């Protein structure tokens, strides 16, 4: 069989084998990896049997990188090179991170996203996140592949539902950099809902309130027989437990006159603040000592009343998005059947009380708030990998923020409104405003505000080569497409002239594709391996996957849906791809994959039509004529 010949050594492609896929919760504070094994989702533990990996990365001058518990334990020793909560910097500029309060890092401005200066060189948040993901990947490889469960086909990575395009793109790049095949980016509250809904066999309308270390999401979902339909989502991707820590630290600095600007002192103060915050969840007051680097020691005290008073504004900031999400979903609080609490920061009593008050009911806390997101991601990963479970899960998610274009006068014109179900595509027509105009500047923005300057800029590009016409005669169609990961691509073309001028962009956070390629090339996990070899390996895997998919489709439906010559054409394209994939030319393999895709288009369309028709079978067809 051509299939086995092109497989990587040691890699099996037997069609019915259980395909392993993991779910990864890449958290601000803690990260986890989980997988479905023998039918149940479980968190994969590290060699010390720990489920949570602290999202802390320490760089050393000799190039060593330490991630997790050890890095966390030493964060006060070497704060500038020990990065915590890097997720808050993903896809963010220097102006954004300045709002987080005092942090012991040396930030550097760079186009699109900040960089951090460390002893091991300047690092982007994508690099740093990739270090965390690499460790999780190793953990998964070890836990799964050791007992020949099969092969790791990919990962579902969770992101806050309110992450914008730049933050999502950055997360996906970090995963690529860590050598992970991303099956899907999944919204964290949706992942939690999967774990919750399947666990409790719930049906109805639920709100998922997820307050983690660095981000806040609220999603309203309808659960019905395995379908998880997100009705609306809202949140604040810069609000989490870290901000409560900052509030306490600022309070102590002010009231105790702590003026030290030493970075170690700054980190220690933040650590004491976090401990105090967590202690006040079960105690009414707390006390600790802060040892400053100059030898001085300061007694730190805080009561629960003081803490609640100084952070009430932060709690209120979570309620506004909840109200907005309910309004967008056209629901009143009484129509919500349950409020599911997710994220470590929802343990705080005043958060619990505020949510209970708003909804007029006690929130549901019967889940492990640290693990549900990873478990839900694992369940989704298992479905995507093709291991159909009886539950037959379907997720219908939405985009969190409106997508639009800049129009005259710096106004933002919405093209796709927030809370549209993905995948979604929408086109908008524009025209020229000057006689003979041959180019048009297109500026893509994301956000709810009227003025472009208040929205986030995603991409700028020019459509050139418009044939000269009088003002208003040209028809420029700008098409927005958002895929199932929530990622946008935009294309523009002039439609009257027949001259197809077309531009297509995938917005990113300022990193061009070749920069990513360069990062990939220099990344540690691929050191010594050159880019061409990597591309070849990737195309071979893709070729094997494509052949396997087409052969499975042929076995299932080939006899019924294909004429003899059609089938022969497909089979010969398979054989050709199999041959070419044995060679060394990744571009040729890519072309052969495209050719196979092309000859299977009609077959794919017929299969799809038939499955839709089957799904709707039993509905009357005679009364659907236009009256």
């Amino acid at each position: 069989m051509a299939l086995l010949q092109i497989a990587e050594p040691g890699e099996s492609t037997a069609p019915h084998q259980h395909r392993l896929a993991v779910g990864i919760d890449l958290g601000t504070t803690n990260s986890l990896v989980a997988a479905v094994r023998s039918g149940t989702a479980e968190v994969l533990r590290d060699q010390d049997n720990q489920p949570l990996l602290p999202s802390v990365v320490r760089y050393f001058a000799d190039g060593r990188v330490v991630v997790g518990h050890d890095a966390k334990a030493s964060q006060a020793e070497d704060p500038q090179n020990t990065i915590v909560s890097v997720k808050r910097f993903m896809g963010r500029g220097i102006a954004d991170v300045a709002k987080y309060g005092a942090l012991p890092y040396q930030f550097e401005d760079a186009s699109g996203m900040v960089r951090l200066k460390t002893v091991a060189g300047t690092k982007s948040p994508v690099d740093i996140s990739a270090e965390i993901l690499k460790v999780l990947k190793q953990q998964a490889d070890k836990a799964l592949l050791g007992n020949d469960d099969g092969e790791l086909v990919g990962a579902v990575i969770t992101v806050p539902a309110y992450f914008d395009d730049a933050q999502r793109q950055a997360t996906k790049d970090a995963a690529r950099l860590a050598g992970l095949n991303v099956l899907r980016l999944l919204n964290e509250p949706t992942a939690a809902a999967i774990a919750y809904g399947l666990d409790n066999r719930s049906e109805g309308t639920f709100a998922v309130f997820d307050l983690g270390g660095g981000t806040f999401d609220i999603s309203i979902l309808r659960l019905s027989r395995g379908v998880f339909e997100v009705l609306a989502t809202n949140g604040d991707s810069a609000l989490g437990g870290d901000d409560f820590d900052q509030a306490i630290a600022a309070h102590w600095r002010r009231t105790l006159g702590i003026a030290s600007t030493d970075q170690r002192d700054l980190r220690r103060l933040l650590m004491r603040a976090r401990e105090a915050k967590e202690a006040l969840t079960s105690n009414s007051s707390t006390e600790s000592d802060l040892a400053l680097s100059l030898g001085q020691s300061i007694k730190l005290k805080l009561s629960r009343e003081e803490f609640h008073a100084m952070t009430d504004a932060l709690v209120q900031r979570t309620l506004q998005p909840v109200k907005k999400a309910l309004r967008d979903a056209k629901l009143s609080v009484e129509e919500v059947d349950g409020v599911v609490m997710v994220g470590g920061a929802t343990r705080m009593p005043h958060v619990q009380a505020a949510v209970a008050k708003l909804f007029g009911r006690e929130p549901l806390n019967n889940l492990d708030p640290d693990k549900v997101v990873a478990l839900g991601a694992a369940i989704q990963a298992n479905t995507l990998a093709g291991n159909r479970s009886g539950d037959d899960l379907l997720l219908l998610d939405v985009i969190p923020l409106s997508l639009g274009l800049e129009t005259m006068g710096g106004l933002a014109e919405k093209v796709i409104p927030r809370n549209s179900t993905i995948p979604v595509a929408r086109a908008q027509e524009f025209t020229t405003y000057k006689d003979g105009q041959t180019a048009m500047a297109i500026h893509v923005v994301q956000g709810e505000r009227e003025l472009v300057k208040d929205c986030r800029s995603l991409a700028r590009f020019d459509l050139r080569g418009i044939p000269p016409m009088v003002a208003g005669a040209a028809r420029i169609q700008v098409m927005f497409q958002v895929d199932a990961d929530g990622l946008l691509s935009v294309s523009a073309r002039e439609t009257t002239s027949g001259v197809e001028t077309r531009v297509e962009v995938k917005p990113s956070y300022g990193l061009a594709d070749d920069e990513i390629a360069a990062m990939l090339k220099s990344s540690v996990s691929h050191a010594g391996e050159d880019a061409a070899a990597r591309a070849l390996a990737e195309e071979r895997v893709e070729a094997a996957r494509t052949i396997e998919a087409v052969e499975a489709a042929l076995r299932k439906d080939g006899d019924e849906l294909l004429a003899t010559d059609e089938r022969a054409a497909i089979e010969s394209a398979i054989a050709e791809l199999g041959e070419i994939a044995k060679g060394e030319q990744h571009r040729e393999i890519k072309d052969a994959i495209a050719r196979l895709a092309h000859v299977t288009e009609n077959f794919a369309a017929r299969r799809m039509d038939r499955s839709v028709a089957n799904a709707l079978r039993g509905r009357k067809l005679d009364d659907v004529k236009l009256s």
Partner: protein
Amino acid sequence: MQIDFSKNHFELFHLPVAYPIDLPALEQAYREVQREVHPDRFANSSGAEQRLAAQWATQVNEAYRTLKSPLARGRYLLKLHGIDTEEESNTAMPVDFLIQQMEWREAVEGAKQSKDEVALERLTSQKRDEEKRLFVLLASQLGDDAVRADGRETVRKLRFLEKLGEEIDDAIERLEG
């Protein structure tokens, strides 16, 4: 090969082409079709099937969004009958309607100034009542060949009310924030 775009949104879900709609049946058909075509079902398929799934799922979402909303559904049915609602170009509205609009807008402004959330909620419910009345009218217009074209003006009025609703929501949001 593309999806058969000659099928209209109603036909896509095997529903009768008519303004009154069986919402539970629409929801159920939507889920049934998405279960078959959603890209999540094709994560391991060939590139051709993945592209097709993305196109189908996009189209199905668009059809569902259109049919679910009574305004979008009305506008779409008119379009199927070859009637353009001219919402961008035609701004000639009956005087009494315009006067009512102005009064409502003033009331929204007033409530904004005095930060009166209760008044804003009251305006929302008044607006809803007016919408309900217009949806009933639209249904009768769409069901009757003789007056179907009058549905254009009803759709334009409903669009005005939709915008008013967005303004009220904005105002409420600002008061909450």
